[in-house]
């Protein structure tokens, strides 16, 4: 099974971090969708999501198959100005490096390699004190 069509359809969301703002209810959808998840409208406009946001919740996986980074942090985040998503953390060593409400930024990184292809997408990077 190839993962290409599904990733290709989301190339703007994954590689350029675009969101899809509803003209009716103003909800910023992410990734791309036909109908707004809030109100069902199809009038969605592609917008640039902010690079910074905050952590709504998180987890850190310790028990993973060998090909995954361990421990593997994942979080639900809300971007400044709207847009919520769930993805992996980068540059964390344990749950001690993550806190609900902490400021983060999105960086585009390699998420996986499959059948010789690299897959890129947004990862969450905690902002260090001097960067806040």
């Amino acid at each position: 099974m190839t993962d290409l069509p599904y990733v290709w359809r989301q190339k703007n969301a994954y590689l350029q971090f675009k969101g899809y703002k509803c003209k009716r209810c103003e909800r910023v959808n992410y990734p791309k969708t036909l109908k707004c998840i809030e109100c069902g409208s199809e009038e969605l406009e592609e917008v640039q999501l902010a690079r910074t946001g905050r952590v709504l919740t998180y987890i850190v996986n310790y028990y993973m198959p060998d090909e995954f980074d361990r421990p593997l942090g994942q979080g639900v985040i809300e971007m400044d100005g709207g847009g919520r998503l769930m993805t992996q953390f980068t540059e964390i060593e344990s749950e001690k490096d993550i806190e609900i409400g902490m400021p983060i930024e999105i960086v585009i990184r390699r998420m996986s390699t499959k059948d010789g292809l690299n897959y890129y997408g947004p990862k969450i990077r905690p902002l260090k004190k001097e960067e806040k």
Partner: protein
Amino acid sequence: MRGKVAIIGAGLIKFGELFDKSYYDLIGMAANACIDSVDKGIDIEKEVEAAWIGTCMGGISAQRDVLSGAGLITALPYLKLKPVTRVENACATGSDAFRNAAFAVASGVYDVAIAVGAEKMREKEPQNFLRYVAGREQVLNRGLIAPSYFAMYANAWAKKYASDEKLRTYMSKVAVKNHHNGSLCPYSHFMFEITEEQASTAPLVSYPFRLFDCCPQTDGAAMVILCKAELAKKYTDSPIYLLGTGQSADVYWIPNRQSLTSALATVMAAKEAYKMAKIEPKDLDFAEVHDCFTFTELLDYEDLGFCKPGEAGKLITEGEVCLGGRLPVNTSGGLKAKGHPIGATGIGQICENWFQLRNEARKRQVDGAEIGLQHNLGGPLAIGCVNIFTNKKP
């Protein structure tokens, strides 16, 4: 719907790592136990008119699939050429299969139907199972496994209502309780007790969950026979009746949810079931709830209305949900100890309702139980299913 459907037989096998039994063997054995439980007997071939089979992981978990209703005929040849429907609905697979069988009987189309649930979770290596789940996507959701979804809610709940330390204590107490109950239940995968110390120091799986916060991978099967309520006494003097049923599906992706501290799929399913049953949570004598992880059980207390939001810790700390308490929860050992063979889980919980409401639960019996509840929460907290039963004809 209220009181229109009765259960006249229920049976399950001892859940566990059943390497010497096939998918179909498990179903056949559960069917034998179920048929034996019909007090006045039943001619299954002649009297059962339709069947629902709940099985979820089919091709991933077992060597052979039960990918359609026809799979059930392999296990139970006496159902040949009858209508059989296969249901898959994440961890609510079994309870939803039951729910659909109940609708068919309540509609008047069939007098007698069966609902079967089965899963073989140990046929394939756990690492391969995990690899499949974690690698389903290459980008955003890559690496998410079952504990991740529930742990997202656990950390949000701890931040809003307690602290990481308090949550740790509550989760350990749930693990100890359910292992204790499991030690009293002959159908339980795990029949050993654990201590709070063991639970709180076990290896981390997905922070904050440690090993003993997670249900095991378990093989199992369970079956119930449903009939039109007016016909129940033909089969037994002690049927149990379906009082209410509810189901709810929430948005699949967690970031799109309204709440990260309450599973609204449970809340809405419970609301529908309580309304139909014309009862309130305080009327329940016991409950079998979805405890795929210890925190899930805490969340269930709140979402099923056993306590107010944020107060789940009190119920477990004060022992109200323990055997002998005000509302014993997961007397069977729950998913945590009894096991979680996905398709069989919900129907196994209905079997525990059957035992409790017929005063057959022996060492784990809740004295004088008249109303019980069964609940599942499937997928990433996305599918809620609730069924409520009583032993008094409504």
